[in-house]
């Protein structure tokens, strides 16, 4: 093993020997992220757009560089040393992902491009095969477009019906209404674990049980959950789970689709090509076993291995530490935001991830975003790919600060000061 991988292995000992918060050393963690040293418009970067994409620690950057410099070859194809090394590293990343979400077997872990592709794969592989005319698919009122549009496409194609779980004014799904949506034609539930626009953590355990009582499988969109709360797919008993690497300190271009093996085996392949076959003649092709049946073509090998390193990093920091620190940041931010006259927090669910979505007087969020950027503060402004959520709250857009474990209380204070400055410009 080379030096930096050893470092990485040593990392857990230095950081998370116990799970008490005293081992959570923020200054040392921040030093791992080169980009946090940057300044923007002459001010230190305050990066609060983590729900869109998070930053990458040196450990993951090093892993990518090392792979590219010493280990790269195509995988699953060559008998030569490099190809075998790359294959081993890539498959190791699959096993890391398996442990990360508590899956039972590595073959239940499919590498995809990201959460979006994972959902599209399920729509195609499961939806197109098992959902037909007159059937119903349930989604929620707080889905990201990536968990709406594929199901709309399916419903249009199959003449099936899309049913939507409504939510209340604080951004919590109405569980009674949810239970009432089920009938004999209900074939699938696709639900976000954590809302990117509101921060709501849905009671997915209970909601999955409701669906299972009716014999209906459930897909969880974990894009906003995986980086922030410990996930165990077996404890949740979800049938499918998707998440993206780039929201959890890993590279773009890769994500994970988990599916129960029995379901994945029944599904049709998503794309055809190399690696997903056992045998091809012009008359007939025999598909490979899962997970390879769903992994046609050369994947993003470096990104997959990088995701493995990101999982190591996050695991070393500890998801309990992460959740605790981020919750403290959210409490601090929420408290301060409530004292700003004219600021309206959108999404105040009781169980919430560290997302602060807000409107400010009648100042458009894009103006807020541009002015905050002047102070080096990066927030997202817009509909957050969740236009139905905006419609539900009767607003065109929000400004959104989304926190990660490497954010500090001082950065929250900078945000609050920045918001006051925006108000002053428009006063």
């Amino acid at each position, binding site marked *: 093993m080379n030096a930096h991988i050893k470092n990485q292995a040593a990392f857990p000992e230095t950081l998370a020997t116990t799970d008490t918060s005293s081992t959570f050393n923020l200054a040392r963690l921040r030093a791992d992220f080169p980009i946090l040293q940057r300044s923007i418009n002459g001010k230190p970067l305050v990066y609060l757009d983590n729900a869109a994409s998070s930053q990458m620690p040196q450990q993951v950057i090093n892993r990518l560089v090392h792979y590219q410099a010493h280990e790269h070859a195509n995988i699953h194809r060559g008998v030569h040393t490099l190809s075998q090394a790359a294959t081993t590293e890539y498959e190791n990343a699959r096993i890391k992902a398996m442990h990360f979400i508590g899956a039972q077997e590595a073959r239940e872990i499919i590498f995809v491009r990201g959460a979006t592709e994972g959902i599209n794969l399920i729509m195609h592989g499961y939806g197109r095969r098992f959902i037909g005319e007159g059937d119903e698919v349930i989604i929620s009122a707080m889905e990201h477009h990536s968990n709406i549009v594929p199901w709309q496409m399916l419903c249009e194609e199959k003449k099936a019906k899309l049913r939507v779980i409504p939510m209340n004014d604080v951004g919590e799904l109405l569980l009674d209404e949810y239970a009432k949506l089920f009938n004999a034609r209900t074939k699938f539930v696709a639900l976000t674990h954590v809302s990117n626009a509101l921060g709501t953590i849905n009671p997915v355990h209970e909601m999955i049980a409701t669906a299972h009582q009716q014999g209906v499988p459930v897909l969880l969109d974990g894009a906003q959950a995986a980086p922030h709360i410990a996930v165990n797919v077996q404890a949740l008993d979800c049938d499918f789970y998707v998440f993206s690497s780039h929201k959890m300190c890993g590279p773009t271009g890769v994500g994970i689709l988990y599916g129960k093996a029995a379901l994945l085996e029944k599904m049709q392949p998503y794309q055809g090509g190399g690696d997903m076959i056992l045998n091809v003649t012009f008359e007939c092709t025999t598909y490979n076993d899962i997970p390879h049946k769903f992994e046609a073509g050369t994947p993003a090998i470096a990104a997959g291995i990088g995701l493995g390193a990101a999982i190591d990093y996050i695991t070393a920091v500890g998801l309990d530490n992460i959740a605790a620190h981020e919750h403290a940041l959210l409490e601090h931010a929420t408290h301060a935001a409530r004292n700003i006259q004219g600021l309206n927090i959108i999404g105040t669910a009781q169980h919430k991830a560290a997302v602060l979505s807000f409107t400010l007087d009648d100042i458009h969020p894009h*103006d807020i975003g*541009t002015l905050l950027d002047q102070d080096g503060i990066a927030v997202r402004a817009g509909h957050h790919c969740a236009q139905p959520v905006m419609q539900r709250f009767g607003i*065109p857009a929000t400004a959104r600060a989304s926190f990660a474990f490497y954010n500090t209380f001082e950065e929250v204070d900078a945000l609050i000061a920045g918001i006051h400055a925006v108000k002053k410009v428009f006063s």
Partner: protein
Amino acid sequence: MNDPRALYQEVILDHNKKPRNFGVLENANRHAEGHNPVCGDHITLHVKIDDEYITGISFEGQSCAICKASASMMTGQIKGKTVAEAETLIQEFRDMATGKLNVNAQPHHLGRLTVFAGVSELPSRIKCAILPWHTLHAAFKKMNSTSTEKDF
């Protein structure tokens, strides 16, 4: 312009707060809707054209300060002009916003609209400033809706 905050100067803030020619226009004979899907800006233009002259114009919709001020100032500048003159302004405004026209060095007819010159340094906001102009062009061409994702 080093500090984009300078873009949020009084003229623009004032037009944002008190937009001119805001609302529906009776007797308008051209209408177009403009969308900026990236940020959700949405405006509707009502235009009245008589013999090539723009005799009336108003706008409605929800948008950021940059877009609203741009629309408000556009309606003020355009009224009374011919369609051909307005098309020239559309082109010049687009060129200014995208940095192709240096308003200090090259000839133009933009007048007070040069307060938007700074937007060229804020790539994410260029479309906000251009949307009303883009929509005006669509109204002239009798396209009923347009989006900043089309052309330019």
